[in-house]
C-alpha cells in the first residue's frame, strides 16, 4: 500500500504538472481538492483518465469521485480493491 501511495503521488505530480510540489509535500491524508492541493474540476478529469489508463478502473458515477479523490489514502484504498491492471 505504501508503494502504491508513493506511486500515486508521483503520477499526480506528473499528470497535473504540479511543478512546485514534491512527493514529500503531499501527506496521505491531505485533501486533494479545495484547501489541500487545490486541485480543480479539470484535474478531476485528469485523475479519472489516470485511474482508467494505469489501473483499469472506469469511474462511471461522478458522485463516486468525491469520495475516491478525497486524499491519497482514499485513492489508494479504492485502487487496491478495484484495480484490473
Amino acid at each position, binding site marked *: 500500500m505504501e508503494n502504491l501511495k508513493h506511486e500515486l503521488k508521483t503520477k499526480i505530480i506528473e*499528470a*497535473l504538472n*504540479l*511543478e512546485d510540489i514534491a512527493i514529500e509535500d503531499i501527506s496521505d491524508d491531505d485533501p486533494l481538492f479545495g484547501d489541500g492541493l487545490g486541485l*480543480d474540476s*479539470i484535474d478531476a478529469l*485528469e485523475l479519472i*483518465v489516470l485511474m482508467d*489508463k494505469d489501473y483499469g478502473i472506469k469511474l462511471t458515477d461522478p458522485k463516486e469521485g468525491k469520495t475516491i479523490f478525497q486524499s491519497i489514502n482514499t485513492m489508494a484504498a479504492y485502487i487496491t480493491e478495484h484495480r484490473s491492471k
Partner: protein
Amino acid sequence: MKKCYINGIGCISAQKTFEGGFLDEVEVNTTDVIFSAKNPDYKAFISPGAIRRMAKGVKMGIAASQYALKEANVEIPDAIITGTGMGCLQDSEKFLKAIIDNKEQFLTPTSFIQSTHNTVGAQIALNLQCKGYNFTYVNGAISLESALVDALLQIETREAGTILAGGVDETSGHTLSLYELIGLIKKKDQGPIDVLNPKTPGAVFSEGAGFFVIENQKKSTTYATLEAVGTQNTLQESEVISFIENFLNTNNLKPQDIDAVVLGNNGDVAFDGYYNEAETLFSNTPQVYYKHLCGEYNTATSFGLWTALHILKKQEIPQILQKNQVTKHPINRVLLYNHYRGKDHSLTLLNHADL
C-alpha cells in the same frame, strides 16, 4: 475617423525585449537554426494554479499583454484581438501524441482544451476577467496584421476605445523537425548565418509574443499612431513595387515620404529577392532589418513593430538594425514590409504621434 494611438507595448523574443531599453544588449546568434525566446519571470504575471497548465505560448502572451497594459495604464481593454500563425503547438503535439500512444483512448482534457488557437486570447481575458470582444486571427504570416486591421477598424468606427492586439507563436519539437525535413529551416552546420547575404535556402526559426495597446486617445506613453495596414495573399517579385506604391498612394504618400522602412529579410536565398525589389523604392531611405535578432515565426512582425515603435519614439535606429547607411531626421513615418516565402505580404504604416 478616430486616430489609433499605440500607447503600450510588450514584447517577448529571443532578445531582452521584455524590460529595459531599446536593444541595449543584443545577442546575434549566427550558428543555431532554431532558438528560443528569453523567459521573463512568468510567476509575476500568472497565478501558480494557472501557470502549471500553460505552454510557453500562453505564458508569453499573458506576460507580454500584461506589460503592454501596465505601460498604457489600462486595467481592462474593450477588446482583445490575437494573431497566431500556428497557435498552441506544444499542447497540440502533446494531445496528438497521446492519441497515438494510447490508441485513441485515455485522452486527457488539459492538452485538448489548451491546443486550440484561441487559447492565448482566452487566457489573457480570463486572467483580466475581460468579458469584451475576443477574437483570434489565424492567417499564417499575416495573423498579427489581421488583428491590427480589426483593431484599426474598431477604433476608427468607434466600436471600441481601448484594444489589446498582438501576435504570438511558440516553437515545438515535432513540428519544427518536420519544418527541417522539408527545408523551411536552414540546414545545420552550413557555416555562420548571414541574414543580409544569404547563400542557402530556409530560415532560422524562433518564437515570441508582441502585444500592443491601441487606443483612441493620445497619452504620455504614446509611441506612434497606427495609420494603415495592407495585406496581399500572393505576389510575384515583379509585383512588389506596385503593391507598395498602391498602398502608399491610398494613403496619399510617396516612397520619399517614408523616413524608415523596416524589412522582414529572414536570410532565405530563395525568397529574399522580394525585399531586394522593395529596397529599390527606398534607396534614399534608412532601411532596417530585424530577423537576425528574433528569427522567423508567423508573428515575427510583432518584433518588427516593436522595433519600429521604438524608432519613432526614440528617433534613433540602433546600428545592429541598420541595413544601409542612409540617415534621416526627424523620423516621422515608418513603413514595415514583410512576407513569408512569397506569400502573406503585409505593409504597416506608422506615424509619429505628433504628425
